């Protein structure tokens, strides 16, 4: 167990395991979240680290009163992961740097994987429901007109909004049948087996 950091915003745990892709990062995020065992749907996010070999790091908001078992986090993230929690540091310097950068970015930039209400954003929901049910504060239509509240969002059970200037923005794009769908596709074409 470790002491929670003393800062203005929510306490944020940073983990950098040098993960290559967003899909792998989502996978690791689920494992670490399992290790943390936090109740509810606290925010967990991914961040690009573009130092050295570009990769993805993770952040987790830790609710007041909750404790962090760094050993459990390390067990989930692997021995080569950098972990930052308050003043505590674990792992190789380079990865600790990445985790620090991710913690610094948390709430300003990055991609939210877990957030309050995400569990209700499955199947097809309206824009209004997205805004009412979840931490998403804005639905932005890429290359399209502003989304009407009744516009249907084909979630594909994969909703990954991002922070933009403090707002939690879900970027969507036109989809079949006058609906919209999140810009991020759950299983994008890997194209090409060798890459």
């Amino acid at each position, binding site marked *: 167990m470790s002491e929670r950091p003393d800062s203005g915003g929510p306490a944020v745990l940073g983990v950098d395991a040098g993960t290559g892709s967003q899909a792998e990062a989502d996978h690791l995020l689920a494992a670490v979240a399992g290790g943390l065992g936090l109740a509810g749907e606290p925010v967990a996010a991914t961040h690009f680290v573009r130092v050295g070999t*570009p990769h993805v790091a993770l952040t987790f908001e830790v609710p007041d009163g909750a404790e962090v078992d760094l050993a459990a986090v390390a067990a989930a993230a692997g021995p080569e992961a950098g972990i930052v929690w308050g003043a505590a540091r674990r792992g190789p310097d380079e990865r600790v740097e990445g985790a620090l950068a991710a913690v610094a970015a948390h709430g300003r930039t990055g991609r939210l994987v877990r957030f309050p209400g995400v569990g209700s954003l499955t199947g097809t929901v309206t824009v209004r429901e997205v805004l009412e049910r979840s931490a998403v504060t804005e639905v932005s239509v*890429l290359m399209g007109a502003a989304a009407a509240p009744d516009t249907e969002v084909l979630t594909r059970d994969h909703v990954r909004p991002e922070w933009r200037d403090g707002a939690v923005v879900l970027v969507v794009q036109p989809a*079949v049948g006058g609906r919209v769908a999140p810009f991020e*596709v759950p299983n994008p*074409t890997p194209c090409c*087996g*060798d890459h």
Partner: protein
Amino acid sequence: MGIGHGHHHHHDHDHEHSQESPADIAHLLDTAVADADLSPADVSRRGVLRSAGVIGAGVAAAGVLGAGAAAAHDSGDDERGASADRSRRSDGDYLWLAGDHHIHTQYSSDGQYRVIDHVRHANAFGLGWMVITDHGSAQHAKIGVEKVNPDIRAARAAVDGTLVFQGLEWNIPAAEHGTVFVHPGDNEVAVLKEFENSFDGVVQNATASTPANEALALAGVNYLADAVTRKRVRDALFLANHPARKGLDSPHEIRGWRDAAPNIAVGFEGAPGHQAAGLPAPTGPGSGRGFYDNSPSASSFPAYPLESYRTFGGFDWMTATVGGLWDSLLAEGKPWWITANSDSHQVYADTSVRGAGTDFNTNGFHNPPEHGGTPDLTLGDFWPGFYSRTHVGASSYNYAAVMNALRAGRVWVDHGRLIDGLDVRARVRGQNRGVTLGGVLTVKRGSRVQLAIDVDLAAGPNWAQFVAKLARVDVVQGDVTGAVSDRDVFKSPNTRVVKSFEITQTSGRVSLVYDLGAVDRPVYLRVRGTDGKRTGAGALGAAIDPNGPQMDVLGSADPWKDLWFYANPIWVLPS
């Protein structure tokens, strides 16, 4: 032979031209190419340009800027070797050959077909040239690059009227994929194999976007240039494929490849393949057109907007955006050309399957296809020539002439047989000829210049059995502002659609003229056309492009209902 005295390698050796095309002189104008890297004859020719003030001392004469007196175009009039194939068109100056430089076979892990399967289809669908480009990989470098060669040679012998190049799809270190191909010859396999083993991002474990890997990519381009200089192969070209698909090709990398070897790195795909991928499910793959359905990654260029990961009217965002990345290169005066290809791996609704017991990882190839019996509606590709075509204006029907035409930018592209022919010329008003695609028209300051566009409308059906109807032709114009200081720029501030022609004629040749007025500053022009079925404000707004291509809808993009052609640019330089 030392590289300091390299042969002037990219000239069509079948006949001599008294005039030089702009691309032919590009390396002379490019001060990044040292005198020491030119042949004695080229040093002499550069001296003429220098003494004429075309290459200014201390001026970074990148690309066409200052092309001056040597701007006459290649008049290549030798068509004696031309096939009589009716699919080829001649406008009196050039033999226009449709082609495709991005095709996969059973020697790709995600491929399926024999070389001859592709060549027979491409030939039937009207292609005059094609490039076999299996993925770079450990298996391909060891096995495929050699085993595919006899298949290609056999196809050359078996099928008349289609030139078949051997190439490969390079995993560009730190970036996307690219077509690399060479002129046929004794060393075609050896050079490709050596290149792949030394510079392929997958083979070298160098795909990550790091400075070291970016440098490896440049070394690869330089290797190709050197292989030509040393006459190991007669010619080589590199074109970047699906450049915006994953945001991996940053503007500075594209500029870097081009500047490393302007005669080798000549362009990118204006439109990716996989054009059936956006057909709606369940009777289509239901994906993004071009399989463009990705999101930014840690390796992508951070400044690219999200829409860059999607196609617009089937074209890559770098090309489809008026005033975007392609235009930013043209505004610099950099020759950089676009193409359109099939990227054919597995064809939409095909009934064949990979051969039973196939084991690519062990064998380096898939067993030849067999009859599967069921049309596969999840496949996203067309056969070469079926939908996407890259038309090159060759001086004659041979491998060298096709490569020279690509290098010169005498290239236009279309989808779904939107049109049959295109002759674009910039000319001083009152004069007949002028300069065609890829060229530089040099005029006295204040001369009145016109862009003459002759379009041969589709005289017959495409391979979806309907006759495409051209609805509009747009002229795009931009100022040539010279080299940029920030090599990651991907906008051209002064480029926009300056003229649109509504086309009501339904058959024959349409002749259009855009009057530039008196030209007092260097500009470039390019032409685009559409069936008009899906247009709206362009990616940078209606003021720049009021009727541009629209972002394709994931899972709802019928490629036959949204057709475009694009032509490569012409520069007009007043002196």
